[in-house]
């Protein structure tokens, strides 16, 4: 097996046993990127010099006989909305095309401290708004399993890069499914942690009450190791929760006997692709064989989640993105006659169509006279959706659904109809509204396209998600499948 296909755990052993050096490992990924990137286009920037420098430092520590941390010397990539000091962070937007952050995001800082090697910045829908990465101002990213299809979004780059072995793991962000839907489309593991578990400091904001950073990896064990590094309280994020971060690897136990799994009936049925339904049906069989108790349940307010989300998220976005005014940082349009003219032209030229659409929608929903009918109403519905989950978790340990109603769709298939695109988030959006954690893992294929199994858990119970995901993975081979990119 090629070295770029290995997990962080496997590579750690190779480094410790001096079978490969950190610099050799980084070079192997640079070569892999050079070969497959023309097909996949997952990166917006490859930080080769920095990566080699970071790797050389790790090699010095190995030579000095020091003990290596689990992520030390392991290459990774970051979604381009996570700030990296001295390295451009563009959000795949013209607005930030030359923005060089003067600071690191907390997650960047923690990974650096752990000795991670940063290969570069990964493509996304502009400002994380989208479900296909087609909204990137820079380039489309292609799905490694079928280059005519989208990788999902908004973390399309981070998911495609892991699937194409262009990185060992990556970090994405998830506001309505932006880690889980692309992870599912690309056949990799993606976790959206509980709201407040991972600091959002240095994550360029889209919808602050929903945004959360999380890991995308090749298997569940790596995912837990990354969470050990990035999760936990941070004083720089006032919504960071001061909880005792467990060692997430303690939950990697191959045992789900007696685990109570609920399948909300609203997540399957009309609109679900038959291939996806088949995979879920088989997965339920596997879970039952492993001793889980799987029953149908109901989250009655599910159908209101998408409309509530598409009022709340744009409202928060319209407020967050007010800062892009061409004054402090970012793009500025030429020829503004006065300040209002300059700001209006800057925003007209700097933002793409989807970002403008959400700013317009959000501004409208917050306008006096409509505030109660739209924004306030949506927030009340959010309470009902959260209540559905609270009730379900009285009876079940985890809930199960597909990560998306269909596998990866073709370029252009939904890009002309915003509403059709929004509906592809139907299985993932309720989780963000409720603030709970959820994980997606590879569970099979519809034709050649990967299908993701989506487990939702109680707030701060990532442990049970890791346990069920790990058990499923230990007893199946789906996570080992690789797309054929014509080089290995």
């Amino acid at each position, binding site marked *: 097996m090629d070295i770029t296909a290995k997990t962080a755990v496997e590579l750690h052993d190779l480094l410790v046993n001096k079978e490969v050096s950190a610099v050799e490992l980084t070079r192997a990924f640079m070569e892999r990127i050079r070969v497959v990137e023309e097909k996949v286009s997952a990166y917006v920037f490859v930080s080769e010099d920095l990566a080699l420098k970071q790797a050389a430092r790790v090699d010095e520590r190995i030579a000095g006989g020091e003990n290596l941390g689990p992520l030390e010397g392991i290459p990774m990539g970051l979604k381009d909305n996570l700030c990296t000091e001295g390295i451009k962070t563009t959000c795949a937007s013209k607005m930030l095309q*030359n*923005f060089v952050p*003067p600071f690191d995001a907390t997650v960047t800082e923690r990974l650096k401290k752990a000795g991670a090697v940063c290969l570069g910045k990964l493509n996304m829908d502009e400002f994380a708004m989208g479900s296909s990465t087609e909204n990137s101002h820079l380039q489309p990213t292609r799905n490694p399993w079928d280059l005519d299809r989208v990788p999902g979004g908004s973390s399309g780059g981070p998911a495609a890069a892991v699937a194409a072995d262009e990185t060992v793991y990556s970090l994405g962000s998830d506001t309505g499914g932006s880690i889980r839907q692309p992870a599912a489309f690309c056949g990799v593991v993606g976790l959206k942690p509980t*709201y*407040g578990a991972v600091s959002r400091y240095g994550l360029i904001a889209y919808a602050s*009450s929903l945004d959360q950073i999380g890991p995308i990896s090749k298997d569940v064990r790596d995912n837990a190791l990354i969470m050990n590094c990035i999760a936990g309280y941070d*004083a720089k994020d*006032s*919504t960071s*929760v001061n909880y005792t971060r467990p060692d997430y690897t303690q939950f990697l136990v191959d045992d789900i006997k007696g685990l109570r799994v609920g399948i909300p009936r609203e997540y399957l049925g009309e609109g679900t692709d038959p291939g996806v339904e088949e995979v879920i049906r088989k997965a339920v069989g596997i879970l039952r064989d492993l001793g889980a108790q799987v029953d149908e349940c109901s989250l009655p*307010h599910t*159908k*209101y989640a*998408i*409309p*509530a989300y*598409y*009022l709340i998220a744009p409202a928060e976005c*319209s407020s967050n993105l*007010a800062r892009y*005014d*061409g004054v*402090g*940082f*970012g793009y*500025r349009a030429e020829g*503004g*006659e*006065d*300040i209002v003219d*300059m*700001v*209006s032209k800057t*925003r*007209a030229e700097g*933002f793409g169509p989807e970002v*403008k*659409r959400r*700013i*317009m*929608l959000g*501004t*409208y929903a917050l*306008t006096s006279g409509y505030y109660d009918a*739209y924004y*306030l*109403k*949506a*927030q*009340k*519905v*959010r*309470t*009902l959706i*959260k209540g559905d989950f609270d009730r379900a978790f009285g009876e079940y340990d985890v809930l199960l659904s597909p990560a998306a109603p269909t596998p990866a769709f073709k370029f252009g298939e939904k890009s002309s109809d*915003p*509403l059709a695109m*929004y509906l592809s988030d139907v299985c993932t959006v309720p989780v963000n*509204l409720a603030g709970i954690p959820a994980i997606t893992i590879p569970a099979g294929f519809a034709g050649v396209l990967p299908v993701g199994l989506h487990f939702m858990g109680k*707030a701060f119970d990532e442990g049970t998600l890791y346990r069920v995901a790990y058990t499923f993975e230990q007893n199946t081979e789906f996570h080992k499948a690789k797309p054929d990119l014509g080089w290995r």
Partner: protein
Amino acid sequence: MKISRPDVEHVAMLARLELTEPEIEMFTEQLNSILEYAALLEQLNTDGVSPTAHVLPLHNVLREDVTQPSLEQERALMNAPDAENGFFRVPRIV
């Protein structure tokens, strides 16, 4: 049609977005279809339901009022489209 063309122009002004003619037309149509879908929420009785602005039971997060290091002027200005003498430069305001 819930949203008229003048509504879109008004909202664009509030959002400080200079829209082109085709954009105004497109957004009038698309915002209407999205809000029509959002009208699904009207079916739901939410009397007596309190809104969730935030899922966490967090209130004001306070810290000791102690001076801490902040971004130096040079670094704060390094991404400015236009700066002069330690200030951000902007077009005429009044």
